């Protein structure tokens, strides 16, 4: 019973990661690409790790999995924020359908 749930969780998490990578390939500008990868890839890796912990049914493995999930959940927004700020200040082009640009008045972009 636990093996079936673990296998299903592995497949579902891999599908989320695959969707994230299709997003990184198809999205039109870098900010949308980061929005696809940061959320979907983090969710996918969390589901895969929970499936692994459910396969082993061991307390040590569960502790390591919880550590990895907490670390990824804490650091993925920080890394995405730093890359996004650097990309914005460097003046990378926004998508032509982007309407709201709230940082436009505060930080001058390099042209």
């Amino acid at each position, binding site marked *: 019973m636990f093996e*079936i749930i*673990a296998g299903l969780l592995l497949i579902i998490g891999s599908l989320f990661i695959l969707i994230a990578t299709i997003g990184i390939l198809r999205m039109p500008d870098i900010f949308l690409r980061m929005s696809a990868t940061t959320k979907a890839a983090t969710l996918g890796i969390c589901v895969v790790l929970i499936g692994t912990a459910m396969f082993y049914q061991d307390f040590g493995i569960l502790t390591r999995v919880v550590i990895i999930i907490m670390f990824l959940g804490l650091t993925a927004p920080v890394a995405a924020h730093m890359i996004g700020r650097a990309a914005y200040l460097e003046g990378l082009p926004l998508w032509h359908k982007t309407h709201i640009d709230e940082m436009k008045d505060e930080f001058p972009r390099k042209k």
Partner: protein
Amino acid sequence: MSFIYVAANISMVLLICSVVLVLIRLFRGPSIEDRIVALDVLSVIGIAIISVYSVLTQTPLLIDIGIMLAILSFIGTVALAYYLHKGLKKNV
């Protein structure tokens, strides 16, 4: 052949497909930030591949390598973004 074996093989195939897609973006990416994002996602896929491989070979010790990979990828991404931002400020 049990169900978990088949499921781990299927998810390994999906993860290798996503590695190929990320590598296309890594080689084609127009700016350096695209490449940093691709490297970040590549390390996340690496953690997933290590986890699935530990299920396939029934080696629980491989999960520790996932912790190391998560920490190293975060430090690498933040360092790259920091130095990019710093060089940018110097140029302006």
